[in-house]
């Protein structure tokens, strides 16, 4: 079920009403959330529910074993069971064909023809997200940071809660489980901030991102006939398309959760207003970047084992972070670009004893991010290389506009989106809390204006970019 569908417009109020009718029995509320989350997911493909249920069972059981086992070696073994099973499923469904293909190409290069090893495998929606969520649960128990859950319904609800099930935010057990196993309250602040964020999210996704996508798709589909100027504008549009698409999704998820009395962690914090790439990663897809920092970078030794190991860890984290997004070398290159520039920044900061760059840092950061996005968006390496070569050989010319109506719509909506971001950014109030600033009447007017803007500018694209990850 998609957030921007009529089904969700009906589903959300029904679940909301029944949920609060069950108040204050939070266990019954959890059972309802669990059932509705499975309905939400099963709407897409009920067969893959078995994977979520398997992961939930596994980590529920393993979590308790890790906790009650006193011997450190045995604890580690149980942790490995969780890691291997979860990552094994992820590898099978997401990366099997990628590695089989890469293996065949490598063998062909040394003169050994390997038969086609790829399988016809469908990528289950959300597998990357809930796998990371369950992994963090087992690791946190192993590290002694949280207690294992003894409430099976509550734990299953933690894994599959519908607002964040298919594209995050990747919630930590330490944040969500305590909320799941306690009575929850809905107050005026949660309603205001939740509704505001849902509607802002819808506007970002359905009006801004989807309209930008029309131009981006048309240019990237025929990249070879376009000059550097057109490809540059299309890539800038893509930078904002992916931002508004994913942050819009996160907004709807966080806002929906608030209506059920849950506080999710923030996932985006105006990433394009960053003066360094380091800062960008503290603002972009925060639930993933902090996950990678806490469970990968730090597990590899972080910055505690000398300068060389630190840079190695940084590069490895970003390469694997890239691969997390998809089974393609382009994502690995995307991660590598970020890894290299993060390492360079780290070196610069430690050498010159500075903490950030001046205002030119905004431009520098955006340029690096933009170049990396080319690899993220392009179909393959050759396409990305061809686009970048047009920029670096200064193959600029007159801009291809295509359908003027589409182009102007996209540009205008992008500017509106940026203006809203700038206003919220300057207010020093998080978008997650912004709705509480308004009176009931003012909020209703804002919601109404957004509804009309959606009516006038919605685009009919049906998918979210991050669903493919």
């Amino acid at each position, binding site marked *: 079920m998609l957030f921007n569908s*009529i089904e969700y417009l009906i589903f959300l109020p029904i679940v909301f009403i029944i949920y*609060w009718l069950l*108040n204050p029995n939070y266990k019954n509320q959890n059972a309802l959330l669990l059932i509705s989350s499975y309905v939400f997911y099963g709407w897409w493909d009920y067969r893959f529910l078995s994977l979520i249920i398997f992961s939930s069972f596994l980590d529920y059981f393993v979590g308790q074993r890790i906790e009650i086992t006193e011997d450190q070696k045995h604890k580690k073994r149980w942790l490995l069971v969780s890691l291997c099973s979860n990552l094994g499923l992820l590898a099978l469904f997401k990366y099997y064909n990628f590695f089989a293909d890469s293996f065949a190409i490598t063998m062909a290069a040394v003169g050994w023809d390997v038969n086609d090893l790829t399988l016809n495998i469908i990528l289950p929606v959300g597998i990357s997200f809930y796998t990371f969520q369950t992994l963090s649960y087992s690791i946190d128990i192993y590290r002694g940071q949280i207690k294992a859950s003894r409430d099976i319904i509550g734990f299953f609800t933690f894994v599959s809660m519908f607002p964040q099930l298919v594209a995050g935010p990747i919630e930590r057990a330490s944040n969500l489980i305590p909320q799941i196993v306690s009575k929850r*309250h*809905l*107050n*005026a602040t949660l*309603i*205001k901030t939740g*509704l505001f964020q849902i509607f802002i999210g819808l506007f970002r996704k359905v009006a801004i991102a989807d309209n930008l996508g029309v131009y981006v798709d048309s240019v990237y589909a*025929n990249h*070879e*006939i376009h000059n550097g100027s057109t490809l540059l504008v299309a890539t800038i549009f893509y930078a904002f398309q992916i931002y508004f698409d994913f942050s819009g999704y996160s907004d709807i998820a966080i806002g929906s959760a608030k209506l059920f009395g849950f506080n999710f962690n923030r996932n985006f914090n105006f990433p394009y207003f960053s003066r360094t790439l380091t800062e960008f990663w503290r603002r972009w897809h925060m639930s993933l970047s902090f996950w990678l920092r806490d469970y990968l970078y730090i597990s590899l030794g972080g910055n505690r084992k000398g300068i060389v190991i630190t840079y190695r860890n940084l590069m490895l984290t970003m390469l694997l972070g890239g691969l997390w997004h998809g089974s393609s070398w382009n994502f690995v290159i995307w991660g590598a670009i970020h890894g290299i520039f993060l390492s360079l920044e780290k070196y610069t900061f430690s050498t010159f004893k500075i903490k950030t760059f001046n205002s030119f840092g905004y431009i520098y950061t955006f340029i690096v991010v933009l170049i990396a996005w080319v690899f993220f968006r392009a179909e393959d390496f050759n396409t990305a290389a061809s686009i970048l070569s047009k920029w670096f050989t200064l193959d600029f*010319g*007159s801009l291809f506009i295509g*359908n*003027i*109506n589409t182009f*102007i*719509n996209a540009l*205008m909506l992008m500017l509106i989106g940026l203006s809203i971001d700038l206003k919220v950014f300057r207010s020093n109030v998080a978008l997650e809390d912004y709705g509480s600033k308004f009176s*009931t*009447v003012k*909020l*209703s*007017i804002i*919601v*109404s*204006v957004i*509804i*009309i803007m959606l*009516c*006038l*500018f*919605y*685009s009919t694209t049906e998918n979210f970019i991050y669903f493919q990850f």
Partner: protein
Amino acid sequence: MDSKTTSKLLKIVLLSIAISFVIDKVVFFGMNKISDKVMTGQAIGKLNHFLSVKDSVDVLVFGNSRANHHINAEELNPNSFNNGTDGISIAYNSTLINTLDKSIKQLVIVHIDTKNFFDDNYKGTDIRSLKTKYLRNDSITSYLEQSNTISILQNFYYSMNYNGNVLGILKNYLNPSYNYKTYNGYDPLTVSESQEKMRDIVLSKDSEQNCSESLSINPIALDYLKKIKHFSEESSKRFVFVTTPFYNDQCKADNKIFATLMTELGLNYFDYSDLFISENDNSLWKDKTHLSARGAEAFTTYFIQEVKDMY
């Protein structure tokens, strides 16, 4: 949730519905006033222009961008109108043809792209391009309602009818792109010197065409075609169906099946998709699916010879 929170939530929801309903109607009726005066551009102007001349011209052309750029009906009769519109197909055309006055003698040329008829995914959603006339033109409204492409929300939020078209309408209201009184709907495609290089790259690109595996006719497309046939039988008009040239149409099975279908339906159909296949002249083309102005003139000259007897 306590009663205070419940009442606050209800207040926000009800107020939002009420305020958005009022704004929606203000926007809708305001846009109606403005858009009715717009006669240029594809957001609504060309449709308004068509509706204003449809029963007073002798020749009408229907179809997508290929019809718009390929058929200069003025060569056949100065009193003509080419209603070719970007991105549309048989559902849109069938709906507009059914708005014509049956008693008036006219030649109606309908451009056909056979791939739509063999596309399993074709749902007739091109009819949504007529949504600016939803609830304002009885015939179009009736077709839109039958098509199941109208959102249930559209019956509450009328401004959805202007989705995606607002800026285009406002732009053409404030600054019309051309003088519609001297416009016959035909838009030849000129290729500038700088575009020639890009065009040659496009034409030389050896793109593999994904020919439809399914060679059964899409029932939705067929239904709209039959509506045109039904209309033609009851009217005094003559109908000609035509497929204009492609640069290199590798999928021929669909053309043959479609031609057979048209014969069975008793409709005049001319398939010119391979007309320029032996010409090694890039100047006839803008890209692989669109003729240049020069190509369009060459095609029109040929086409007129074929249909002049019917006119």
